[in-house]
């Protein structure tokens, strides 16, 4: 399995980026050169230099340090949203696919309702209704994300539910709970796990988007989307204030996508 990861250069690049982001998040205080929130009006809007690698913003905060601390916020959002949405979606999808009939109908119609809104609009309205904060953005994103896993898991459950090993389990007298968790879910979860690793990037992107329009992280929090929003007005004088948070988002999303795609090839147990 390790060899299959290392043999693909793109997967390795994805892994490399993700590891760098993890290191940045874990050791943020050691890596950051300045405080992420300390205002220093004397050195405001300074261009990138040896003192301030990525320059400073309109109130003199060090952009490099803010981006490093921002990895913590973004990773936390990505992980928590996926960790909430994934189990909910998986379990509902597995129940819908395995039970079929009316239970399937009810679960999938609810799923359809959620999917019939554009995700970001739904998340916006939830976040706006709950009030702007990081926690509410996470709730809003989790609420819009689970239906995708439900659909993926349901369809893979449907394709295996008539397998003989599941029938064998029924013949042995296993209860539906055991069949669902020991037989059905382990064999239908792989496509959804891959989707989840891809989604880490997309969730971070969406959260940045919500923060950009003012529904997520509030100043002075070093959240990348919020930083982008702030730098909008000073784009002409200070290109660096928008460029570096933007690049941070770009590389994070790219890293998780490349890694997710690579995992896609590796997760098949028959190729182990």
């Amino acid at each position: 399995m390790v060899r299959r990861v290392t043999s693909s250069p793109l997967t390795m690049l994805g892994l490399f980026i993700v590891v760098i982001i993890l290191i940045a998040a874990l050791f943020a205080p050691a890596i950051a050169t300045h405080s992420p929130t300390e205002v220093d009006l004397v050195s405001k809007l300074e261009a990138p230099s040896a003192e301030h690698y990525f320059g400073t913003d309109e109130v003199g905060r060090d952009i490099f340090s803010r981006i490093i601390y921002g990895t913590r916020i973004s990773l936390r959002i990505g992980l928590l949203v996926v960790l909430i949405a994934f189990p909910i979606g998986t379990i509902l999808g597995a129940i819908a696919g395995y039970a079929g009939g009316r239970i399937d109908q009810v679960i999938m119609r609810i799923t359809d309702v959620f999917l019939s809104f554009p995700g970001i609009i739904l998340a916006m309205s939830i976040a706006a209704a709950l009030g702007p904060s990081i926690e509410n953005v996470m709730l809003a994103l989790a609420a819009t994300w689970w239906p995708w896993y439900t659909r993926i898991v349901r369809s893979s459950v449907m394709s295996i539910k008539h397998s003989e090993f599941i029938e064998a389990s029924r013949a042995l007298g296993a209860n539906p709970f055991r069949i669902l968790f020991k037989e059905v879910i382990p064999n239908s979860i792989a496509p959804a796990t891959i989707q989840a690793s891809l989604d880490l990037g997309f969730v971070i992107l969406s959260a940045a988007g919500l923060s950009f329009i003012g529904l997520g992280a509030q100043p002075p929090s070093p959240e990348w989307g919020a930083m982008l929003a702030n730098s909008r007005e000073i784009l002409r004088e200070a290109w660096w204030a928008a460029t570096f948070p933007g690049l941070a988002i770009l590389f994070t999303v790219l890293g998780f996508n490349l890694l997710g795609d690579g995992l896609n090839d590796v997760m098949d147990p028959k190729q182990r």
Partner: protein
Amino acid sequence: MALLEVSNLKQHFTTKKGFLGEKTIVKAVDGVSITIEEGKTLGVVGESGCGKSSLGRSILRLVEPTEGSIKFEGEEIVGMSAKRLKELRKEMQIVFQDPYASLNPRRTVRQILEAPLIIHGVGDKRERKELIENLSGKIGLRKEQLSNYPHEFSGGQRQRIGIARALALNPKLIIADEPVSALDVSVQSQVLNLMLELQQEMNLSYMFISHDLSVVQHISDKVAVMYLGKVVEIADVGKVYDTPMHPYTQALLSALPVPDPTRIRSRIILQGDLPSPSNPPSGCTFHTRCPMATKECAEIVPPLEEKAPGHFAACIHV
């Protein structure tokens, strides 16, 4: 008392066609009566689609029978409570056709064999370990192989694992649904011989479902021939193979290769395809393809009658 007594079992499936749902009823099993004695093997043969697999699944209540009665050691299974049914599952098990589909690819052999013991709360961890190792010895698996995954084994080995899983709870009856059809001929005999050895050792009864007449002849004590959801002939294996009565059985057996070059083979070729079980022919369902069919055959449903001592057939011309 017979170990298993099935009488007038019917297994009908309703399928909806199209958007507006025109319902059709498929009579997969239509009034089958069979018995299996302790320690004996009943072979069930027939073309694919004749309902032999549905019969097996129906007996185990993997699908709910539509009508009829299934008695295991005198106890009625149809309509039995879920709790009692779970108890009874220890006594009757199934071995599947496809050894690649019947084992969960994400569990080790040890986990697969432990599952029946856990489900029925047999022993503690150490006792279960011992039982599993004992079981794997019976099917010729080394202890180290227990931590391997199914895909690391050959078809024959996998099928033996499937048999071990079925045997884990010391059942009395095994329904073997085409257990060797998916295997190479050389491996088939290994698995068959293993099944015969285990039968002797554990006093097992088998219901052996197959479309392979030679395999059935080798393993069975009694044979039931099925056509379109009905048993058309049932008797001891010797009687069915030496003096087949029903024209369908005769046609099937005439296709069997005989290792005797001097014997002239008169092969009976059946015309047409197996009719759809959702729209079976009137009267005797075999009359559309029967070389002996007369006008009455389209009208009279032939009952399964004892035509000679211990030899039952369903044909008005015998």
